[in-house]
């Protein structure tokens, strides 16, 4: 009887904690109505947008200089939503990219693509920080894209951890984390192009990036909007 009880408990353990994620399908629908990216002020960051974040005075931390954009994921629905971020680090001049979304942390020192663990849902109508920072060891930049994944969760009898099945891709954004040398106007790059001029919100040319809205003109002809906090 005792051995049977032990076997039963062991079986329950295995069943209770088995979490099956559906194989990532190549063709998954896109859903832009469930989640959206927003900034700290609640302004929507559109699907497909590129955000440049270049703080003037980043905090020096044990991990390096912390380049921390305030980006949040907002649940637009009346139900909790299980989500994860598929992160693709495509450039990083030094240090590491730390992503703690939604409830567990990853710290990457190399260029790579990974998907975070959808362990905890974002509650209905709530905003949840993306909790992602680049820790720079020196001036430079890091570029990463963030593709939200949306899951359906079901809890079978005897299970303690819901099974999550990928339902759709949510919005995707790209973030350029920038650690600028304040003395240099060439500290910013866009696909290898150099910054050739800066403009303020009124369209007036300025010598250096300043707090608030800036426009950076690059040698490849592109002009990019940047907010310095």
């Amino acid at each position, binding site marked *: 009887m005792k051995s049977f009880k032990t076997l039963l408990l062991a079986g329950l*353990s295995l069943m*209770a*904690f088995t979490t099956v994620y559906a194989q990532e399908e190549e063709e998954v629908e896109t859903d832009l109505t469930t989640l959206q990216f927003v900034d700290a002020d609640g302004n929507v960051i559109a699907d497909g947008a590129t955000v440049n974040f270049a703080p003037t005075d980043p905090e020096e931390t044990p991990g390096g200089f912390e380049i921390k954009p305030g980006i949040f994921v907002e649940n637009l629905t009346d139900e909790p939503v299980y989500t994860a971020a598929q992160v693709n680090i495509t450039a990083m001049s030094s240090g590491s990219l730390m992503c*703690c979304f939604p409830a*567990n*942390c990853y710290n990457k020192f190399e260029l790579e693509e990974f998907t*975070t*663990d959808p362990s*905890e849902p974002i509650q209905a109508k709530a905003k949840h920080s993306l909790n992602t920072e680049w820790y720079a060891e020196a001036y430079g930049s890091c570029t990463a894209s963030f593709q939200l994944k949306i899951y359906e969760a079901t809890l079978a009898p005897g299970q*303690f951890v819901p099974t999550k099945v990928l339902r759709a891709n949510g919005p995707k954004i790209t973030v350029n984390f920038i650690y600028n040398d304040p003395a240099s106007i060439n500290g910013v790059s866009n696909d290898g192009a150099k910054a050739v001029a800066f403009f303020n919100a009124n369209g007036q040319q300025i010598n250096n990036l300043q707090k608030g809205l800036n426009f950076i003109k690059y040698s490849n002809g592109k002009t990019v909007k940047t907010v310095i906090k």
Partner: protein
Amino acid sequence: MKLKNILYSSAVVAVAALFTACSDIDENERFEYVKPASVNRAVLIEDFTGQNCVYCPNGTEIIEGLLKQYGEDHIIAVGMHSGPLGFKGSKKYVGLKTDIADTYYNAWGVTTQPTATINRSVVLSDYTKWGAAVAIELQKEAKLSLNLTNTYDEASRQLTINVEAYGTDGNTDGKLTVWLLEDGVKAYQKDQSGYNYDYIHNHVFRANVTADAWGDAISVKEGVKSEKSYTYTLPEEWNADNVSVVAFVNGADNHNVEQVTKKAIKPQSLLTK
């Protein structure tokens, strides 16, 4: 010759008397093997944590809640500072990460933090489910009991650890691992509000004492005591008042902790508060 015969005859009589005495005892009252009483078990939580891990203090909160709920005799928590979110230290900042903790981190296939093993029966990154896993483990019958005797010499900082294992249900052929932990270590911890440079870390994994990171082979038979002894010299930077020994026996395959125990190296009643 006569003496020999007398002695022989006496022996025969004595033995006969002995058997006669036995046969006077009712068959039902003769000595029978009595199985040792089952013991309450304790559960080991290896919390793969890191000083740079924003959500790791959330995992710590869960563990503190379990300690309050079940008591320190039943929950043995170990903070394994490890992985890419762990910090080994620098000239400016105290680090708690060790190479041994990284060995365990990699062996369990941990990819995100916090993640915990619960009695090495399950590996969970969802810390809101650690309590459920602990409850399941606590229901399992313990197959053995463990007892620790620690002797610490202040002058030499040498610690002698005696581990006594006693089989209570069947025979267990597994591995005995012995670790040292330290409480009350001040070192930074990142959380959702930023860096806390005055954070106090408890249950910090400091060192493995057994010859192998995965423990020494041990065979614990039912109704029999098995003992092993170890010595360790504490580094100067550790506060001996806050150091404890954790000992556990798990399966030969490194899974399924059968029993675990913890004891401070100094009698707590003698510590100056």
